[in-house]
């Protein structure tokens, strides 16, 4: 399985798309849906196939004013790898 690297450019996999606005903002995929708020949404909305993993982590550090960069990197990585297994995110 491909590894998530600093230069990886995560993107939503085929058949995964956003619907709804505001608190109803939902990620739809073939057999389900995720209603996402806060960090989950902040991460996935940046998975546009252009930003690199490193850029996403840096942006989140700024947005959330995180003091522990290693932790946010590990959290984002775990989250994206989990969604990769579900075939929601490709990288």
């Amino acid at each position, binding site marked *: 399985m491909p590894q998530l690297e600093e230069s990886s450019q995560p993107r939503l996999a085929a*058949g995964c798309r956003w619907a709804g606005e505001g608190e109803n903002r939902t990620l*739809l*995929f073939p*057999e389900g*849906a995720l209603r996402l708020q806060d960090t989950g949404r902040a991460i996935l909305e940046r998975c546009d196939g252009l930003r690199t993993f490193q850029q996403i982590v840096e942006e989140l550090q700024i947005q959330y004013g995180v003091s522990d960069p290693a932790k946010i990197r590990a959290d984002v990585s775990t989250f994206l790898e989990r969604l990769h297994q*579900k075939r929601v995110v490709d990288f």
Partner: protein
Amino acid sequence: MLAAPLALIAEVTHRCPLHCVYCSNPLEMAAAKSELGTKDWRKVFQQAAKMGVLHLHLSGGEPLVREDLLELVDAAHTAGLYINLITSGVGLAEARLSALLKAGLDHVQLSFQGSDESNANWIAGTRVHALKVKIAPVIQKSGVAFTINMVVHRQNLDHLEEMIALAESFRPQRMEIAHAQYYGWAFKNREALLPTQKQVEESLRVVAEAQKRLAGRIRIDAVVPDYYARYPKACMGGWGQRQVLVDPSGKALPCHAAWVIPGLQFENVRDHSLEWIWRESDSFQKFRGEQWMPEPCRSCDRRSQDFGGCRCQAMLITGDATATDPACSLAPGHFQIEEQLQRMNASANSTPANKAHGNAPEDFWTYRPQPR
């Protein structure tokens, strides 16, 4: 407050070029002339989206036999639904697929009946395997989200590794390996389809191994055989909780099999709004929540996880739709499932038949016919 269903299953027709012996359609299918028209479906899709439904599963029968499928997809997409096409692939070609994708189709789920052509055709009751092998790469190449679905049972489980290999060769994002669910035609053909204990154990091993090997490339969703489980499945996520099915003639049901329960009247989307049917109609309220539950469900810690199991299975096996699902090891009716499994596992019939080997007589099982 009662939430809206997450998904609408639209059985747009019961017509189908296949005759699969495990088909989930009712034994009495909706006649072609009773089918809802394009406008009716458009209205249903709009109502569904408005009440908060996210997913539409275009199912059948074979949805591709509807000549207005493109208009249906367009209507559903315009309404804002996420559209799954559940298909045998028969009737699909590159141009039609491309038009459907342009109209907003989100996902294609293609079925396979087996890996070996003669066995697969024997199960489908017609020669379609070669067609499926031809269309699968076309679907993959189109870039649409792609799932391969394989229903497994005693007559194909011994080829599970080859089936996974075949599906893998088409590079879908997902595979669904679903043990047959014993309703509709599958219930009628249960004697021929129930897997042996050994097959079930082996299939769990094979699926787990494939999940590990294909992780990150192909996601495998497995539906386990509840006859062999300790606790029942959380059928449909609870009666009238998450999904609504509309049959070809417009009748709305809480699931594929609810027609087996006597005394329920299923309202029609021609006469009522989908929202009214979902919220107010007797059939959807009948087993919603926990009020109807008997013991041991009523005081069971698992009641909020599996909702007492499946009402239709309780009806089919115990004759009482309000009984605890007999698939549950705690159910008073569980002995009926145990006896069935013991009888089957001890019988010579437990060896899979094979038409090519000449040991499957003509009356081995009942093929699903065409609706009138």
